[in-house]
């Protein structure tokens, strides 16, 4: 009986993190960026207010849209929720199910598929723009994510991400190096996947240059709130995953207990956020032609991961 209560308690606290951490992360990120530019910036709870306001607003839906446009926000939200429960993006995530790495990658692709469909469904020119760019980027960046996770899987001879990301084993120097490379590769590809700064400026609203924003241009009201929240959750999951990789790389130097790990995973997430804020504060948006050069760094990292795994065995 006490087992049951313990599990329920774990899930309840983790559920709180799923719903409150992502908007908070975005708030912290905007605050960091503002401080870097010598501005006071919006309070860190601003994303909550924004989401709440959008939720109460009325909605305008184009006449030409079909059920896909209405359904996409809900479908993406539920798929993202499943991903966030599957992937070990925080160290204290309770066990949910066998998180196969190929399944997770296809679930990410599923959300992308539906957002592209919804963008095309509304029939606006900018939606098509954004959709074509999103698909091009995804095609380039997917091998990098796949190779990073697969080389980690090869190292521990399993495809279950929960087993790969478990902490109850001793980390050797080679494994620590592999974690570092995989973390860097995942982080670089997450910047592309989430359309963050060197690829796409999330704050601009110039339709000709944007990627993610162009796709959700037709959404409004609760639909937009749900889409935005899904994007925040994706951010939290992907950066959380790279933060976990970095933590595993640190495991070679220090060993900490379970509570310390939970705290460390949140601190590492904050560190990743500060790195993103630094990048966004200093980098300029790349030309569309130059984007493959940036993605090549992620691919080089993943190839180095593969090299380490091959050389080790």
């Amino acid at each position, binding site marked *: 009986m006490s087992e049951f209560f313990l599990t329920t308690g774990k899930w309840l606290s983790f559920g709180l993190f799923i719903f409150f951490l992502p908007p908070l992360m975005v708030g912290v990120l905007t605050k960091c960026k503002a401080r870097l530019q010598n501005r006071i910036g919006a309070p860190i709870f601003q994303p909550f207010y924004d989401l709440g306001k959008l939720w109460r607003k009325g909605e305008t839906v184009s006449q030409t849209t079909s059920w896909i446009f209405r359904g996409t926000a809900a479908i993406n939200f539920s798929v993202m929720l499943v991903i966030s429960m599957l992937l070990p993006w925080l160290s204290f995530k309770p066990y949910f199910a066998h998180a196969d790495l190929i399944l997770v990658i296809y679930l990410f692709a599923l959300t992308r598929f539906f957002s592209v469909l919804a963008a095309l469904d509304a029939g606006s020119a900018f939606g098509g723009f954004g959709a074509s760019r999103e698909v091009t980027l995804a095609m380039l960046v997917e091998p990098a994510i796949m190779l990073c996770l697969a080389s980690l899987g090869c190292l521990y001879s399993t495809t279950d991400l929960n087993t790969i990301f478990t902490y109850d084993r001793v980390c*050797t*120097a*080679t494994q*620590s*190096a592999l974690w570092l490379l995989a973390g860097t590769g995942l982080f670089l590809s997450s910047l592309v996947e989430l359309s963050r700064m060197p690829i796409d400026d999330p704050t601009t609203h110039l339709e000709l240059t944007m990627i993610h924003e162009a796709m959700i241009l037709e959404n409004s009201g609760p639909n937009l709130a749900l889409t935005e929240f899904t994007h925040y959750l994706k951010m939290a999951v992907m950066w959380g995953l790279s933060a976990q990789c970095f933590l595993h790389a640190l495991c070679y130097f220090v060993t900490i207990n379970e509570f310390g790990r939970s705290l460390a995973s949140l601190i590492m997430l904050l560190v990743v956020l500060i790195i993103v804020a630094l990048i966004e504060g200093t980098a300029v948006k790349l030309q569309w032609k130059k984007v*493959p*050069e940036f*993605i*090549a*760094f992620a*691919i*080089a990292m993943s*190839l*180095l991961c593969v*090299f*380490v795994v*091959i*050389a*080790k065995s």
Partner: protein
Amino acid sequence: MHLDTFTVLAISSAISAILMLGTNHLRINLFFYCVHTLAIALETAWIAQRFHDTNLYWIAFFIILLKVIAIPKYLQWVMTKIDVESDVEPFIAAPLAMTIGVGMLGLSYLLSLQFSSLWTEVDSRMGAMAAISVFFTGVLLMLSRKIAVSQIIGFLVLENGIYLFALTQTHGMPLIIEMGLLLELLAIVMLSGLIVFRIKKSFEHIDVSRLTELRE
């Protein structure tokens, strides 16, 4: 493959050299060159403390002084003078060149397995792998780029590869030879910088692929 400080330093110098291939931006290239050479200098210092060799400490110090600080500063000054920021249209596109570079790292791993480890306490084959990979990277940089400044950077990387090979296979060369090599390197970079000025002055560009055109 077993990772210790020796291997980590060697491989990190190889990886930062490979990252140089990934961008045409010359300032970022120079930054990665500094990181790459710093790793080699630290490797020298590590071998020095391992074998209690004072000469190697001096070599490491001079590498940091000349290759990490002086030469990049000089090349930056040259770049500002002739007003060049990045390489235009290299023969091999930067993303492809970097992927080839990683492939070369794999190839040099296979090559280094043919050697026998000369040291007992560390696996010197890993040092050989990194050195051959740095050598290949330098060759790739010189082959794929068009701007004369990139050719100089490529040459510097290639030279680092040869030095790293000598360092990791033996326990470092005598001080007098190293000093001679460093002085020679400095002279070569100074001269080639001056030649770049001349080329810019008489041809109004520094694209080496167009230097075959005759001009009055």
